[in-house]
């Protein structure tokens, strides 16, 4: 399928407002994807998420697994030569989805199958719920 590109930067503006990150600072070196510990599980590599946002293919981004798989380990953020905070960007996409869809992807009952330290539980809840 050929992707029809047209000007529609609504999503981009919102994600920028939420995360404070400028995606156009990225020059697609791929260092984030090279070091990502969750990269094997992702359908889009982190740099591809940014690339799709840069060219305005937001649909692909909103339906990808990557943003939910991001563990906010900050490896990418620490290594990015251009100082883009990818963890915050991923969080921005997640928050956008949660705020617009107004539904929880997981309930706490689903998550707590085995005992978790409280701080991890809170962190996980913050990530996956509105």
């Amino acid at each position, binding site marked *: 399928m050929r992707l029809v590109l047209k000007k529609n930067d609504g999503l981009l503006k919102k994600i920028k407002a939420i995360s404070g990150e400028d995606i156009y600072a990225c*020059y*697609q*070196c*791929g*260092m*984030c*994807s*090279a*070091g*990502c510990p969750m*990269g*094997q599980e992702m359908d*889009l*590599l982190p*740099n*591809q998420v940014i690339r799709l946002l840069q060219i305005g293919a937001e649909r692909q981004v909103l339906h990808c697994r990557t943003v939910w798989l991001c563990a906010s380990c900050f*490896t990418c953020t620490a*290594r*990015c*030569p*251009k*100082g883009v905070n990818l963890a915050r960007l991923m969080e921005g996409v997640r928050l956008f989805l949660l705020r617009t869809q107004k539904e929880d992807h997981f309930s706490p009952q689903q998550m707590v199958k085995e005992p978790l330290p409280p701080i991890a539980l809170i962190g996980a809840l913050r990530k996956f719920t509105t």
Partner: protein
Amino acid sequence: MRIGVFICHCGRNIAGVVDIKALVDRVSTLENVVYATNEMYLCSDPGQRKIQEVIKEFKLDRVVVAACSPKMHGATFARAIEEAGLNPYLIEIANIREQCSWVHQDLRKIATEKAFKLIKAAVAKVALAKPLEPVYVPLTRKVLIIGGGVAGIQAALDIANGGFEVYLVEKSPTIGGHMAQLDETFPTLDCSACILTPRMVEAARHPNIHLYTYAEVKQVEGVVGSYKVTIEQKPRYVDPEKCTGCGDCAEVCPVIVPNEFDQGLGGRKAIYIPFPQAVPAVYTIDLEHCLNTEKLIVCEQCYKACGPKAINYLMGPKEIEIEVGAIVLATGYDLWPIENLREYGGGEYPDVINGLEFERLLCSSGPTGGVVRRPSDGKIPKRVVFIQCAGSRDPKHGCAYCSKICCMYTAKHALLYKHAVPDGEAYVFFIDVRAAGKRYEEFVQRVMGTDGIKYLRGKVSKVFQRNDKLVVWGVDTLSGVAVEIEADMVVLALPIVPSQGTKELAQMLKAPTDEYGFLSEIHPKLRPVESSMMGIYLAGAVQAPKDIPDSVSQASAAASKVLSLFSNKQLALDPIKAEVDLEKCVGCGECAKVCPFGAITMKKRLDKKKRKYAEVNKALCQGCGCCMAACRKEAIQVEGFTLPQLRAQIYAILDAKPTKVEIKKKEGGNEDKTAIVKPR
């Protein structure tokens, strides 16, 4: 007084913001202005001709041009009025483009008002202008070239062939620079030493070139035309006149230390010559590692072995003083320290090396005799990963610029590695391949098409050790796959940075640098080899990362600039210089204290009282005006920018009139001072 004002539209640059017609109307009412007009492009030939015609027709004796910055076309208009018979200093430029229309794009009304005030100020200033004549100073037609790499050698040869004396100073024991360390050069794969060493020998033998190796420039005084330079010649402890370069001394020397020329990968003795074709072919004792200290001689092996008795342990440093008229800076580059890249194991794993180290491993005269061996265990690496932009284009590491030469030398490295190890694999990680040079793209395409060399588009995230392998975690963003490569060796293309000591040298010469420490040129496009400090020229990587062809071209360009400077027997300087009014000077000496160029000396008058007075050396004076600010008697003034002129300018802008007010002096007695009083 008959002043003509010419206002330039500069296309829409000025006219798009400033209301030119209203401006002409208002300007023509100013005092002393007998003619005011506007023109589409004053700097054009018809524009300049118009100025010349008006000067003659209206018998103008002063001109104001309201246009772009005087840095842009000040000289153009001065020349134009000179051709029309006016002194070229009876002109004033009102900068209504950079300082008005460009910065007030959305404020038309205010911009027009500001443009008027700038012109009014220029009219007031030019009314007090005096005709000036250029100052002629003696010119020492000899040049100092600092740095004996390929750029320094090229500039030296070009100037020496032009018939002028050259002093070539190099801090290491041999000339040749980094180019001498290279194996083969892209894109032609010429042997680097084979093309460079004949040039090195030519420079050393040239009758017009005085070569000082193992020497450093210690002090530079003076300005263009007459610099006094002190060179410190470090002691070699070997008499260059007697040494035949036979090498008997090194054979018997018991001390082995890493050889800097081989990037520390190979060894040398404490008495050494960096490489066999070094120029001059004179041995040097590295006293830091020699067993002999200055006072105690415990080992005499080399002394005994030396047939011509060239060794002298008691040799001391020597200072040489020379006088030159111009200086070419060709101090080249260093590689950014590899230790800065901890994520790639820089400085931690011995098999993570930089490009110059790999170059030495490839070189048949290198430490491994041209067999690529990894530093840790001497094994031949079967899988090598090359990482481009390892630190360059990385603002977070403080190096936002592209180092320019890495794409090409990495491609060359990969190819030469395949030539040396035909069954080996080479992987190149790149972000972009920048191959914008003659035959460069073709070369890169050839490398990419070579079996066994794989180009992966992406940056490596980290390198870590697993058993005796280096594991590289990278990505190929084109296929969207994160990759892992178990490599035997990793070669980093590190950023090119200004060589050590460049900063201090630039400070000594008062030559400006950019934020990375590279020397700044006066104009990036039109004057790329001149520093804004007149008389200082730039050649090679001292100005920005450059490959060999670019360095050589720039060196020849710098040489041509020096030759055109030396085509005159005297140096004509702008007469914007400090001038002392002997009537007013009381000889307090404040001006001499503040002068940053040491241009003012205090002299005694010949009268009975023998009072002191200030005297300005016009060759040294740069017209900065520090003395003018320091003088309490207004006795020293910079021509073309005198206090009355500057005051008139300020009064015009403020719509104020000078009023005399009396200020009581502490010692008693009154002194007349002027102050600005705003009209009601």
